[in-house]
């Protein structure tokens, strides 16, 4: 080894006081911004010292343990100094008021595709089962169908126990929001999973509606479904659209690597999935408490109309103010990760 550089032990002896200082500062304080101002400044200074020492240790060929020690210390300081923007409740409001509807409009092609993938099988199944109710047994066990038909035939004139409302709301949260997350997540398989779930949901819902209608309870089931459907059916389509968008990013990469293309769409599809989850939460509450209540059918229909119009107006109009020069993709702070 040449003699121009300090020996490893001399290097360590001379520099370790700085390393120890930085180590202590990082260990003591969980939040750097709560330190006194002069100490915050010294963290940055010590970090740069450690960076320089790391480079020197590497180029001097000092022992791997020393290099690894500086590596870990430097990386710890780095992760403290370069933080992601903090989580703020305000961001959730911004997501719902602005970013979600904007991203939705920007993804209108995927929305159109997802809607078609849901509605076409839905109507085919609906008309097929209206014409021949036995077909419904192909997608759902006969016993379950009859139970449904019977419960809707009774109507909701009596309302039902509050405890049952809570129970069903819980079920809708667990089942429906979970389904929509799966509709979204399986889009990673080149969109195929989302397509499958959209079509299968369309078929099941269409066949159920058709069968129950054919058994003579069509008005009741529609009265029941229309209210929360404004949130639930649209949210499942949105989750599917997010999955399709994710899958399509793998197919059409615009000259990026497949992963890079996927990564670029990440924040947008996450916003869609989150928005859909919130909508499904609302849907579960309506479905659990309002839809089965004993309120007159006319009121339910009026409410359902208002909900549908409200949801559509939200999709079309929300977050339009101040759009100039700002795109949903460029919204600062909320999850714009560098990649």
């Amino acid at each position, binding site marked *: 080894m040449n003699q121009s550089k300090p020996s490893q032990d001399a290097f360590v002896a001379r520099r370790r006081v700085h390393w120890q200082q930085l180590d202590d500062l990082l260990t003591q304080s969980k939040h750097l911004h709560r330190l006194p101002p002069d100490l915050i400044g010294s963290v940055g200074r010590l970090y740069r010292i450690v960076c320089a020492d790391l480079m020197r240790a590497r180029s001097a060929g000092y022992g791997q343990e020393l290099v690894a020690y500086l590596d870990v210390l430097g990386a710890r300081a780095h992760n403290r100094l370069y933080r992601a923007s903090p989580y703020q409740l305000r961001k959730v409001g911004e997501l719902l008021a602005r970013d979600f509807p904007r991203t939705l409009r920007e993804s209108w092609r995927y929305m159109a595709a997802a809607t078609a993938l849901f509605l076409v099988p839905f109507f085919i199944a609906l008309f097929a089962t209206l014409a021949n109710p036995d077909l419904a047994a192909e997608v759902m066990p006969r016993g379950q169908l009859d139970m449904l038909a019977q419960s809707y035939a009774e109507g909701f004139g009596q309302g039902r126990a509050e405890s049952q409302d*809570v129970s069903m709301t*819980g079920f809708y949260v667990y089942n429906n929001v979970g389904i929509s997350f799966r509709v979204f997540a399986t889009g990673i398989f080149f969109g195929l999973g989302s397509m499958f779930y959209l079509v299968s949901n369309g078929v099941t819902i269409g066949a159920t509606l058709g069968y129950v209608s054919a058994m003579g309870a069509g008005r009741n089931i529609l009265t029941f479904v229309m209210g929360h459907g404004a949130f639930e059916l649209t949210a499942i389509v949105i989750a599917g659209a997010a999955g399709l968008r994710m899958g399509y990013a793998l197919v059409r990469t615009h000259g990026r690597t497949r992963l890079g293309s996927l990564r670029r769409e990440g924040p947008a*599809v996450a916003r869609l999935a989150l928005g859909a989850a919130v909508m499904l939460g609302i849907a579960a509450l309506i479905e659990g408490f309002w839809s089965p209540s004993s309120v007159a059918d006319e009121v339910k229909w009026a409410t359902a109309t208002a909900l549908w119009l409200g949801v559509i107006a939200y999709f079309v109009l929300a977050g339009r103010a101040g759009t100039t020069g700002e795109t949903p993709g460029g919204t600062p702070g909320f999850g714009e990760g560098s990649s």
Partner: protein
Amino acid sequence: MSKPAGQDGLENALDTTVDVETPEHVTFRVHVAGPSRRAVAYGVDLLIRGVVLVVLAVVVEMAGVTVDFEGASQGVLLVVMFSLEWGYYILFESLWSGQTPGKRMLSLRTVKESGVPLTFLDVVLRNLLRGADWLPAFNVVGLVVMAVDGRFRRLGDMVAGTMVVQEAKGRLGSALVISPAPTPAELEAIPASVSLSGAEMDVLESFLRRVGTLSPARELELAQMVAPMFAQRCGARYEHAVRFLGALFVRAGGHVLAAPSHRKTFFGRTRGGA
């Protein structure tokens, strides 16, 4: 952007390390966590979620029985189940900056591929994608994808641009000790002009640091793999390969502490999993 280390040289070709470059153009080397460690963390989290669910189920059932509200308690439990299934990871990874109780226990942390902490949307993405990684059952897709990827990322990590790293809390190792110190005779046997490359010195140093932690027979066996090569190169003879390597290290300019002292394992427990 990070890349698997070792593409630029052989030294880390088999290592599970990743180079992360900072804005200061300094690269840090981090250890990505493999499937086994992550599986254990997953198991711990699963256990915690299971216990929470059972405890809450008992509490809710008891409350339900006392006010005769059985349907309601069922609904509450389903919401709890939903929150544990989807909310648990999102909550902890956003509050604890990429850690869950299980990850914390195994000193794992989820970070961006650039080494910086996660944003909320990253956390949401990587955890919603569990729905795909789980398929067809028991995380099979996730495991296969991890096995193929150089950074052990599952699908959720790939979409969110994240990876799971092992957090090593490095300690400055004590200086190297050769005990007993090489005798003048041992040193004299090696020419003073001997010169070793940095990589060779590293190999010798890491071997000498392990002396004493291995059985004497194993030490000798390892030393004999390289000792003849060095001996031939500098034209020296040796009696005991381990002693020879120690003397060679000193002669070539390696630094050792004169007096024996307490030795610590530098990486502590994290080394075994690396």
